[in-house]
């Protein structure tokens, strides 16, 4: 397609799902489910088709560095002042990086929408479900396509909102609703980091006296990097490092890394397709996407890069350890997701951005497949507890086979997609040059250990679910059934993608082009990162062999413990009670957060409320009471003293009057006496003077 035309229709990619969401959301229960399904899936499919169009349009542009299409839809917000200004466009940016993500979001998204049609059949509020799902797709696409961090933040929080709505989709269950709330609030803590980073960024980019308004487009940010590097450090830490780390806090929230990963396992309360879509394939990868998108920023700060890598590696191992002791099939997968996301950050942290995106893509395939497979299992047995499953492979053959493919991929066995991308990460780590000597090697070892554990817990999951004999209620056996075709179809497609996904980034040893790396190169070119290192082929082969070996060891141990000698697990658990309890309770991190953060904040809130009521209002009441008392006092004084004088005067005259009154007897003769007496007195008076 003509790039010009494509440039004008980028906005349709997010807009169509939004329209779908609006139509489904506002129609309520008035339209039939069929219409809802068509609108819900159709809008995402349309988006996908436009994304594909965009992909080929970009490919058709011969010069890789010009493969950027930016559509500015309108001026979103602006403020002018003397000697400056701030202007943010609602602009979408279609470049190799965002188009890959768009394809993943809409492609995998479409498959999951389709799967949901089967999974949610029978639910009362499907219109609401599909509206949320479409709204999520919209938000995610805004996040991916946004040309500035502020618009990205709209998508960033938008996906959080949809995650909240979908986790608590069955809101009549308080626990599920609470899980949604937890997800949103933990995410908000991360988002705060993102936003504060944004504040730093705008401040650092502002040049006094430059009348050009500050724009936040990624191009202008990249162009402003020198200014950032020159800026005065705050508290001894460079501005670039501050910003990069703050943004990374946002990433740890959204992508469930240490220390903000706690919401993701609880988020499994949502419908399983949601877990597959939001909490495995797309939303949780937003953090990785963001780090890669801002690669120029991270490359400007080796400290931040190291932090990203270390956090990624630690999370990869830590989550894998916890996954070992979980019995809820979805929770195992959730911890596995956290762990895999750790690998992506590890890759990004050592500068292998393209590799991170590669793993993001393959992970989207195989993890979505795992979740959808788990969903299919749950659809059949109606619960999540692996202890009450077993032997399901004969009842759910398609689910089993596709699940097996994903299992092999996540364990990292050649030649599946997971193997290729994970090996690339480990290879990048071992060859990375980090500021701390020996760190790269340690991180690599952590990654390898995580890989071994991954193989172990996935084997455990597979064996407990599909092998052995069925451990549920005996009468349930009759009802075990394979899922309908609308659900198995997406599984098969995803299985295909999982098998073939590795083609996107063939290892150097094959001497074939690494498609994804080359394609993403223009986005990462400025930084010089992402160029696939084809040098140390021998090392790459070595890493492959070691990692495969580690994976095989994990699988073998798993097979030994859960298939060959099931009693051994119990022996182990009894032997190491403390460790077992620690693992089963996820290191008590939730409890610690509850006690150290949630409780004190609630207490502070209660105290504030009380202070407001007793303290501030107390002062107000005290003032009013004092004033009232004072006025009583003055009133008394007024009564007694001022009024008293007046009254007593009146009283005197009254008494006088009373006395005088007696003179008037009404008897004529008395008056005459008085008259005569008067005359007499006057006489005497006259005579004397």
């Amino acid at each position: 397609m003509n790039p010009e035309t494509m440039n004008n229709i980028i906005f349709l990619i997010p807009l169509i799902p939004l329209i779908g969401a609006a139509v489904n959301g506002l129609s309520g229960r008035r339209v039939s489910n069929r219409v809802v399904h068509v609108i819900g899936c159709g809008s995402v499919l349309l988006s996908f088709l436009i994304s594909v169009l965009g992909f080929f349009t970009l490919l058709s542009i011969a010069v890789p560095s010009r493969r950027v299409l930016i559509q500015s839809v309108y001026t979103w917000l602006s403020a002018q002042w003397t000697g400056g200004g701030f202007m943010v466009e609602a602009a979408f940016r279609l470049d190799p990086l965002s188009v890959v993500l768009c394809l993943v979001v809409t492609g995998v998204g479409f498959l999951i929408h389709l799967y949901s049609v089967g999974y949610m059949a029978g639910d009362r509020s499907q219109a609401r479900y599909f509206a949320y799902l479409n709204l999520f797709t919209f938000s995610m696409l805004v996040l991916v396509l946004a040309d500035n961090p502020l618009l990205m933040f709209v998508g960033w929080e938008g996906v959080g909102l949809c995650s909240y709505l979908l986790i608590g989709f069955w809101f009549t269950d308080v626990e599920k609703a609470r899980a949604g709330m937890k997800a949103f609030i933990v995410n908000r803590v991360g988002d705060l980091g993102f936003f504060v980073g944004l504040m730093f960024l705008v401040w650092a980019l502002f040049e006094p006296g430059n009348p050009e308004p500050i724009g936040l487009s990624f191009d202008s940010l990249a162009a402003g990097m020198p200014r950032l590097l020159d800026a005065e450090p705050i508290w001894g830490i460079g501005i670039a490092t501050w910003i990069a780390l703050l943004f990374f806090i946002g990433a740890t929230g959204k992508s469930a890394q240490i220390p903000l990963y706690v919401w993701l396992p609880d988020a499994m309360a949502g419908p399983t397709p949601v877990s597959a879509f939001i909490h495995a394939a797309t939303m949780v990868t937003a953090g990785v996407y963001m780090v890669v998108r801002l690669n120029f920023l991270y490359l400007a700060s080796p400290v931040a890069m190291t932090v990203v890598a270390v956090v990624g590696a630690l999370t990869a191992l830590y989550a894998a350890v916890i996954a070992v002791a979980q019995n809820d099939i979805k929770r195992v997968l959730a911890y596995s997701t956290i762990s895999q996301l750790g690998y992506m950050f590890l890759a990004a942290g050592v500068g292998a951005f393209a590799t991170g995106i590669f793993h993001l893509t393959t992970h989207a395939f195989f993890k979505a497949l795992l979740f959808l497979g788990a969903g299919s299992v749950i659809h059949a047995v109606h619960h999540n507890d692996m202890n009450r499953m077993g032997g399901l492979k004969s009842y759910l053959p398609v689910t089993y086979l596709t699940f097996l493919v994903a299992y092999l991929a996540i364990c990292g066995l050649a030649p599946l997609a997971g193997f290729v991308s994970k090996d690339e990460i480990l290879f990048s780590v071992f060859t990375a040059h980090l500021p701390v000597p020996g760190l790269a090697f340690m991180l690599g070892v952590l990654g390898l250990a995580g890989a071994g554990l991954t193989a172990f817990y996935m084997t455990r999951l597979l064996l407990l679910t599909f092998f052995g004999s069925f451990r549920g209620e005996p009468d349930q056996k009759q009802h075990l059934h394979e899922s309908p075709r609308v659900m198995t179809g997406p599984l098969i497609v995803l299985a295909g993608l999982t098998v073939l996904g590795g083609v996107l980034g063939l290892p150097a040893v094959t001497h074939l082009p690494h498609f994804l790396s080359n394609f993403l190169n223009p986005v990462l070119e400025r930084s010089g990162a992402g160029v696939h290192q084809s040098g140390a082929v021998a090392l790459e082969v070595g890493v492959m062999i070691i990692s495969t070996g580690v994976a095989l060891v994990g699988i073998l141990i798993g097979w030994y413990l859960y298939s060959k000698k099931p009693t051994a697990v119990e022996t182990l658990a009894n032997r190491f009670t403390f460790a077992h309890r620690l693992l089963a309770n996820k290191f008590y991190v939730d409890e610690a957060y509850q006690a150290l953060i949630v409780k004190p904040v609630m207490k502070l809130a209660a105290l504030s409320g009380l202070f407001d009521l007793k303290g501030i209002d107390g002062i107000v009441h005290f003032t009013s009471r004092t004033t009232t008392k004072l006025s009583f006092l003055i009133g008394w004084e007024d009564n007694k003293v001022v009024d008293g004088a007046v009254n007593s005067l009146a009283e005197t005259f009254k008494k006088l009057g009373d006395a005088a009154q007696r003179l008037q007897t009404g008897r004529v003769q008395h008056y005459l006496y008085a008259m005569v007496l008067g005359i007499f007195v006057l006489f005497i008076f006259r005579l004397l003077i």
Partner: protein
Amino acid sequence: MIHDHILSLMIFTPMVGFVLILAAPSKRPTLIKTIALCATIPPLVWAARIYFQFDRGTSNFQWVEKVPWIDAFNIQYHLGIDGISIPMVLLTALISFICVIASWNIDKYVRGYFSLFLLLDTSMMGVFCALDFFLFFVFWELMLLPMYFLIGVWGGPNKEYAAIKFFLFTLVGSVLMLVVMLIFYFGSMDPQTGGHTFDLTLLANQGTHQSFLQDNVLRWSCYLALLIGFAVKIPVVPLHTWLPDAHVEAPTAISVILAGILLKMGTYGLLRISYPLLPDMTLAFAPFVAVLGLISIVYGALCAMAQKDLKKLIAYSSISHMGFVVLGMSVFTNTMAINGAVLQMFNHGTVTAMLFLLVGVVYDRAHHRDIDRLGGLAQNMPIYAAFSGLAFFAALGLPGLSSFISEALVLIGSFPKYKVITIAATTGIVLTAGYFLWTMQRVFLGSLDERNTGLPEINPREIFTLTPLALLVVFLGFYPMPVLKLIGATLEHTVALVLKNGAGF
């Protein structure tokens, strides 16, 4: 002809309704309500006209009317609007109209209620249009009377207490304002007539009073007095405690007016009076004002979290959100923050109006607002829950809804000036998310309480009151420029003026 007096018409049309209602027989409540409704429609139409004809490129006052009023004291009937007042005028016209509809179920002393309501409408519109300090003060005080009775007569169980508390707090502020007004009157000289003046446009010119009001102590006392007067209205912690009580007791529509419009008068007063008249003190007090904003944001949010009464919770959230306005108004190195602040005044007006209308809906049905006794309402009132969800998420600043834009502008704009304060203020965002979601959870989610199964779904009249606000909230989230364009030029001028005049001392 009409065009020249459009502001007077907007102010006094409700007054005509007031007279008509007094003349109407009290036994015909529907007639009275209809008159009230008809009296609020023309201002809405004129507001639309003002919106389309407003010249966005200038900071001058528009639709100016100037007639001598009391010649002996050189008091003028001087009206006019600029970018600071126009969003408030539009908001007042809209909210008044909505509130009449929201008051349709009033059945006690209908005539008294609606006549006082229209009086209130007149005074609010007057405050936002007045350009003469005296006229401003008259409208400001005029508003107290109907508000006092509307809370004191039509309020909840503790209405007398709330009404008196509201009245006294506001009166303290008014008295301080009165003193400052007189100081400025006697300290000023109209360059044309040589007499004293109340004209705010003249007083904004420092030359009219600079030589008389040179004493620094006097100047900061004046600023502080005005600040206290306006801070009571905003309200700023620790002068806020009248607000929760007034809200809890006031009838729904009056809460909406109170939070939607009256609170903005405080910040509006600062922008219209304090800033132009005392620019040097404005700059000197700015960090103090920023700290006040921060305290309001965080403290308001914490208090909101502790509330069990739904309406009280929203009242505290108002305090928290108005804190952003205060914070944004304390920055003069750029106009992002102040643009955000004025935009937040408008956005908070719409969002909080929605919130209070929504509380009214549940109160009308359940006859209590105790959060713990509600629960699972999303099951039998899905449309209501949807509206509430929208309002809650707008209030907690979800990007894509209107409040986000204003809060983001305030925070981004404040950061270069007050780094620590701004970062501390962002914690308010997390707390806000916390208590709104927790409230959402307790009121709408979970299993439906038996006591609440009979509550009927929101009715068309209530939907009608909420819809325009909901549309505004969503629309301004995606496209805030309509408002930003209205206010931009004036705020640029205001900030430049404060910097220019303030530095001259």
